[in-house]
């Protein structure tokens, strides 16, 4: 079997592009929906109409974004089968379950309720509508939970074992898969990041209204919700990001060392390189500015454990490749004679390293024929792209600390009722709008690009996971996605701009003066919009 490297490259490109694109919309849905739930709760508790109108206005924007999230989400599920057929076969027994459960437990819930959220205002009682919104919010976060359980298994494949007769990984313990510690940290980190994005979205757009002197009451209330929700979320995203870093360093040592551009093991506790230019050729980092102890504390939560460097991890990989070859040999023997006791014992001893032998398939058809040079190449291939990870991680973390500062300041401003006293603050809030997107996309690049060359860490190399399709086919679908996604991005931005510019006042949702009574009769257009916002 020869793997076509063009197909691998194109399939990876397509998956990366569609996943990053999908995740432009998902976190905003995750965050905005809780803001809607909070606003509607205030409405139900106080009975003040403005809060309902806030839910309806932000709901229009939520609806546009939700539609994009749903549209681009289907692609992700299809792609495993379309482009990663061997992956689907090899790990479907484990990986498919959380995806299917996501559909049943979460996506059904949100997709079924979203129609009632938009179109049910006049059909059900206030309390029931509030419950619908809460369950909608719950559905979106549960959806993230199951997807991240699946993703966490790619980073840290627990509770499964290789079966030589079916040539795939099979579940040995579902509780280990579902309660994977990586999944828990990733879940809270990822949804918190989404909450930050939702909060930033509301904060920035409200700041724009205040800069224009429009919708002042409306915007201030919205900002207050965003500031408090955003502060909690920003704190959580950084704290859980730290927990996430800790689990990465336990389970994906190579990813951790690459993020840090730590070419060689340092004495504990390792220092954190704040700035530097990682040099892949020479395997060193130029102009490094180091902060002592910090990396050791992040990575090991201790001061006396060492963290292995890249060179040491490559050596370790070589050893695992050697074991893997033995496992591979035993596997082939078992294919001839499934009762061969000795082969069974060899496989059982080394099956956790079988994936390392599969790394050799890129260089040689039969891993048992590999030369020392092949083994060296395969071991070197376990190093991900260090400069990209190094910088993506630092920018992401920098954004995280900035979010804490901005939301803490906003919270103070909201608490002291000074939200619209300083224009520079409002401008800062407005121009911070893109940062959550930057941080979140970079976060996924660290997580997934940092996982390379593995599709499933230590189990299945990415290159082996592809389908037996032609490069032309993948190019065709990739072209289709680029075309459709570009057109949809243009429409999405155009509609978002249109409705933000119109604002609650222009849409007749809430009068622009501070008078508390809504304009009679002008809610019609809004009613129509929120009705059409259904999907």
């Amino acid at each position: 079997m020869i793997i076509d490297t063009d197909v691998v490259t194109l399939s990876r490109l397509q998956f990366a592009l569609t996943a990053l694109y999908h995740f432009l919309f998902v976190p905003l849905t995750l965050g905005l929906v809780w803001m809607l739930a909070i606003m509607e709760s205030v409405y139900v508790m106080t009975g003040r109409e403005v809060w309902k109108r806030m839910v309806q206005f932000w709901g229009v924007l939520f609806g546009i974004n939700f539609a994009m999230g749903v549209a681009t989400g289907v692609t992700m599920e299809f792609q495993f089968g379309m482009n990663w057929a061997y992956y689907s076969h090899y790990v479907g027994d484990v990986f498919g379950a959380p995806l299917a459960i996501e559909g049943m437990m979460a996506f059904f819930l949100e997709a079924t309720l979203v129609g009632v959220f938009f179109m049910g205002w006049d059909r059900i009682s206030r309390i029931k509508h509030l419950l619908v919104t809460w369950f909608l919010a719950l559905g979106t976060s549960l959806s993230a939970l199951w997807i991240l359980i699946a993703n966490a298994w790619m980073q840290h494949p627990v509770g499964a074992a290789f079966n030589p007769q079916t040539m795939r990984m099979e579940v040995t313990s579902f509780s280990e898969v579902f309660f994977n510690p990586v999944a828990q940290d990733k879940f809270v980190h990822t949804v918190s990041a989404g909450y930050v994005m939702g909060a930033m979205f509301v904060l920035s757009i409200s700041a724009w209204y205040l800069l224009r002197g429009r919708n002042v009451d409306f915007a201030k209330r919205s900002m207050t919700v965003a500031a408090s929700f955003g502060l909690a979320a920003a704190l959580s995203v950084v704290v859980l990001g730290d927990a996430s870093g800790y689990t990465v360093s336990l389970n994906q040592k190579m990813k951790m060392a690459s993020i840090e551009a730590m070419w060689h093991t340092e004495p504990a506790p390792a220092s954190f390189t704040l700035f530097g230019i990682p040099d892949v050729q020479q395997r060193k980092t130029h102009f490094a500015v180091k902060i002592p102890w910090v990396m050791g504390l992040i990575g090991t939560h201790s001061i006396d454990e060492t963290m292995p460097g890249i060179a040491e991890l490559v050596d370790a990989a070589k050893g695992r490749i050697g074991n893997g070859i033995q496992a591979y040999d035993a596997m082939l023997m078992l294919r001839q004679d499934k009762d061969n006791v000795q082969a069974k014992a060899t496989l059982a001893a080394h099956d956790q390293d079988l994936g390392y032998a599969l790394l050799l398939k890129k260089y040689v058809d039969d891993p048992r024929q590999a030369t020392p040079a092949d083994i060296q190449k395969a071991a070197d291939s376990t190093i991900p792209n260090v400069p990209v990870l190094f910088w993506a991680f630092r920018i992401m973390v920098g954004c995280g600390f900035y979010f804490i500062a901005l939301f803490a300041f906003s919270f103070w401003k909201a608490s002291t009722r000074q939200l619209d006293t300083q224009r520079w603050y409002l401008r800062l809030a407005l121009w911070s709008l893109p940062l959550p997107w930057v941080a979140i996309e970079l976060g996924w690049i660290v997580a997934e690009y940092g996982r390379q060359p593995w599709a499933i860490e230590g189990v299945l190399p990415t290159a082996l996971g592809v389908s037996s399709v032609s490069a032309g086919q993948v190019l065709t679908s990739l072209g289709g996605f680029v075309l459709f996604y570009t057109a949809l991005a243009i429409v999405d931005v155009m509609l978002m701009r249109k409705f933000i510019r119109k604002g609650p006042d222009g849409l007749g949702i809430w009068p622009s003066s501070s008078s508390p009574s809504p304009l009679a009769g002008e809610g019609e257009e809004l009613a129509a919009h929120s009705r059409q916002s259904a999907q």
Partner: protein
Amino acid sequence: MFDYESLRVIWWALLGTLLIGFAIMDGFDFGVAGLLKVLGRDNEERLVLLEGIEPTWEGNQVWFILAGGATFAAWPMLYAVSFSGMYLAIALVLLALILRPVGFNFRGKIHDPRWASLWDWILSGSGFVVMLVAGVAFGNLFLGVPFRFDGDLRMSWQGGFFDLLHPFALLCGLVSLSMLLAHGACWAALKADHVIAVRAVKIARWMTLLFAALYVLAGVWLAYGIPGYAVVGPVVTDGVSNPLYKQVAQGGSWFAGYMQYPWFWIAPLLALVSAVGVQALIGRRSVAGFIASSLMVGSTIASAGFALFPFLLPSSLDPRSSLTVWDASSSRGTLQLMLIVTAVLLPIVMLYTSWVYRVMRGRITLEQVRKAHGGY
């Protein structure tokens, strides 16, 4: 709890249930979208039709997502082989599905007749693509598809998009299209303003007639023109999931199962009786008519599944590689866990889905739409 054999049969039935759920629930959305330009003569009428499916289509589409997810979890090889093998056909369906969520949401966001009309065409076209391709894909299952496994169970496929367009497969595409257009028309007859409902009744009648004729034709063709597949030698129903452990011969009849288990005949007979039921009921009692068309959709898919049993995906290139219920499933533990999860969650899903339908019940009138949209 259950043995491996029973779990496999249960999951085969569940896969069928999910596909039928998808075809019934989302099928009428596709049908209505496909008929949008025919049933709705102006923008207001089309708004009536769209509002009739808008609050619920999204939940309906999850049946499809779930059928995909459940196939991944319970029948990973079927998922891997069919999705990668029929690559461009699946990509086409995917692009059509991408346009639906945005279409429903974006259509009313700009008040311009050209904008609305553009999305009407897109929604309509995407409905047609999905209805047709689904049928064509099903038709190919009977013809067998050109794939084989190597020793690592890596699949290779010899053939392209146009190889899927065999005349029998195209006929199956038309069966699917007429069936779902009829089903969509029945929903419109139930849900839309009387002006539109009258038209919908007419279309529903014509389409069920067409469906019945094409369905019988496909059945006759299948019986006399398409050779079946059969597992030869010992059939191991609780062995490991490795398709290469068995032997398969081509040349029997796809109706062998019907001869062996005569109760299978209930499905095709019910499909035809329901078609008659739609004719009789849709004009007078639209709810009963819609139930009849739902039965028609469900029993049609069941009749195809019965004929294929125990095959999921026969291989014309290397019959031994064919996927069957007995050798393409997940491990016993996964099937068992997923069964428990499904048994707990699916009833809850049905519960809140029916609540949503109850909240959103009632005919959408032109009056309502004019009041709410002021023309758009």
